[in-house]
């Protein structure tokens, strides 16, 4: 309860007019920057670092936290409305959010995202207050073999977003994995697929890939159909969430933090993996599975909540251990050091005003974001009324700015364009884009953790399964994979049609692919059967 009184003191700090102002400036700037494609929260915080030199540390960090949370939020707006995620964590939101916008439910998607963001952030921050030291010490116990096990699980989960044609889904995944290979090998520093170019040796930034495949790819795709759709404008629709929407979204809002928060606390690559896992979970648990891919509101609510909660989880490790688990956290760590403050085990004792003021300002920022963005949802949705040429010219413009401003190298714009053309080609030939992005994110992560685990165990393969955590995850995977057979043994029958994937393109579905896919769908069937039984 000591933390509760400290938190109240924190509110005393956060609610002074000046600090409230910084929080508001932070969330506004963050939202604005998050909306632009190609400039994610990490870049935003890093760029604004010098701006805050004049502020006192508490004011500066309240503003940073606002930028971080606001940036995570802003990314989803364009994701939903224009299918152009502003940053990589908002990619998943586009999958269901954009179809919703196209069918005139853009405001609902934005509202579901805003409330999901609020709920996730609130729950995450409450967990931060209540559990910070515990979570932090648990996070430290998770090592390379455990991360690798999680990555394997995530790869299994990919099989449920491959789309109607598994072979095309796999093709997209492999394209992503290939892009992920580019660059110096993380363990030995050898060049892979760089063709001797130093520019490529750090690999292709996942933000460039996300913006290229989605934003540029989408703009070119729209251009390819320009003459056909020129006159049509997208319906904006009714502004508020109806009762049936609320019934479908409240559970995903609450489930999101369960996935996002722990992932934020561990160094597993940021908010991309938890948002994706949340999406897969919602898809599996939903009663409206057939709507997924065509605008299921659960697929917006869950991932947004998870993304926001993961930001809170990130702060747990940063504040209690001085351990940056994401790029944003690394920049914030540097910012702390700029003020002569060292985040770590002693921070709560040494700088109680700052820490609790910062935590309280997270609550304040979250409320500000909701208050600002919920009424804004219908206004944002009107963005769709901007004439198409301006809209997509603007997307190309800002994508170019984002790519160029990061390094000041024109070559980054060329890489962006090449990936954009790839995105257009994928749209044209029916390769799903999501598996490609997942491949870019998961591939390098999984390889690094696998090889690090083997390095630590001095080359012994047992090093992959020598922790209880990893063993547990593998058992879960085994059960998921074996589920269809287990059910068959128990005499269960009747695969639901949705579980099988669409009718198209299954002709060439080979043995290994089929095996994976049944694994991915096993859980679906179980739930589906229960639903059927009820009906």
């Amino acid at each position: 309860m000591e933390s509760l009184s400290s938190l109240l003191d924190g509110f005393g700090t956060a609610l002074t007019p000046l600090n409230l102002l910084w929080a508001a400036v932070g969330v506004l700037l963050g939202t604005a920057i998050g909306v632009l494609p190609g400039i994610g929260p990490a870049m935003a915080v890093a760029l604004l670092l010098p701006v805050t030199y004049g502020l006192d540390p508490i004011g500066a960090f309240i503003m940073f936290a606002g930028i971080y949370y606001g940036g995570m939020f802003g990314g989803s707006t364009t994701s939903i409305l224009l299918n152009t995620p502003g940053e990589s964590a908002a990619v998943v939101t586009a999958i269901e959010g954009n179809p919703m916008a196209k069918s005139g439910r853009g405001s609902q998607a934005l509202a579901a995202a805003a409330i999901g963001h609020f709920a996730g952030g609130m729950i995450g921050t409450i967990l931060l207050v209540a559990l910070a030291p515990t979570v932090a010490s648990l996070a430290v116990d998770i090592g390379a073999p455990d991360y690798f096990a999680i990555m394997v699980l995530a790869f299994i989960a990919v099989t449920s977003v491959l789309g109607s044609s598994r072979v095309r889904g796999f093709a997209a995944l492999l394209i992503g994995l290939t892009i992920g290979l580019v660059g110096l090998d993380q363990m030995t520093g050898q060049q892979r697929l760089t063709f001797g170019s130093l520019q490529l040796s750090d690999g292709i930034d996942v933000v460039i890939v996300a913006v290229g495949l989605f934003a540029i790819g989408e703009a070119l795709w729209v251009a390819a159909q320009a003459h056909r759709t020129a006159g049509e404008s997208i319906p904006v629709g009714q502004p508020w969430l109806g009762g049936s929407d609320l019934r479908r979204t409240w559970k995903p809002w609450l489930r999101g933090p369960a996935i996002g928060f722990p992932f934020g606390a561990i160094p597993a690559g940021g908010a991309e993996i938890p948002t994706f896992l949340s999406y897969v979970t919602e898809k599996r648990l939903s009663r409206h599975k057939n709507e997924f891919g065509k605008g299921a509101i659960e697929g917006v609510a869950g991932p947004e909540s998870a993304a926001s909660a993961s930001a809170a989880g990130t702060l747990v490790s940063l504040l209690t251990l001085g351990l940056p688990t994401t790029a944003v956290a690394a920049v914030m760590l540097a910012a702390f050091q700029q003020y002569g403050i060292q985040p770590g085990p002693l921070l709560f004792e040494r700088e109680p005003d700052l820490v609790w003021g910062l935590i309280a300002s997270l609550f304040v920022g979250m409320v500000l974001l909701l208050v600002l963005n919920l009424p804004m949802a219908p206004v944002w949705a009107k963005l769709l009324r901007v004439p198409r040429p301006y809209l997509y010219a603007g997307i190309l413009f800002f994508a170019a700015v984002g790519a160029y401003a990061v390094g000041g190298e024109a070559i980054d714009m060329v890489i962006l364009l090449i990936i954009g053309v790839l995105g257009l080609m994928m749209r044209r030939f029916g390769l799903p884009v999501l598996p490609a992005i997942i491949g870019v994110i998961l591939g390098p992560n999984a390889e690094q953790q696998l090889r690090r685990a083997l390095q630590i165990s001095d080359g012994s393969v047992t090093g992959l399964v020598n922790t209880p955590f990893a063993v547990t995850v593998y058992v879960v995977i085994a059960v998921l994979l074996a589920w269809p057979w287990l059910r068959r043994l128990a005499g269960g029958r009747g695969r639901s049609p949705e579980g099988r994937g669409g009718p198209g393109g299954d002709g060439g579905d080979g043995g290994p692919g089929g095996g994976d896919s049944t694994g991915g769908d096993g859980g679906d069937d179980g739930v589906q059967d229960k639903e059927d039984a009820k009906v």
Partner: protein
Amino acid sequence: MSTESTDSASESREAPEAATRPPAPGSWRERLRGRSELGVSVLLLLVGVLVLSDTFTMETVADQRGPVGPRTVPIVVGVSLLVVAVVLAVDVLRGGRGESDQGEKAGSEPADWRTVALLAGIFLAAAVLIEPLGFPVTGALLFWGSAYALGSRNFSRDPLIAAVLSMATFAAFNTLLGVPLPGGPLMGVL
């Protein structure tokens, strides 16, 4: 890559016809479109070969521990690319189709490849011109050019919108964020 470009070139040639007349199912064009998906297969095959050849020409280093080295993952990815390329080719030949973004059969809709090529060209030109002409000029040209390519023809409004947007972005980055973008030929003259 080369197959891709020839493929899209052939598309652009037939684009005007396609726009005027919806393709009849089972016609020669339909079969050609089915075959155009084989281009994806060839592309995957080429990428697979590229990945594998890059991997096998990689120098070896000594300090690898365990069965997984810098070559393992590229080999797995490369071989999988070859397998998927073959499986996809078989699928296409059997009449399988990818489903495009809007849930339509891939390649069944007429496409305007001229606009796409124009947009890509404008973007590429912007990448080339940004250093000599500076960001505000290039950004404005990129915006106006893209809007023009996408069908906007308001000559008294478009250039102004483009210039104001580009200039405002330049100002925001330069003064607010402290990210220096190239200013153009008049920097240092005035």
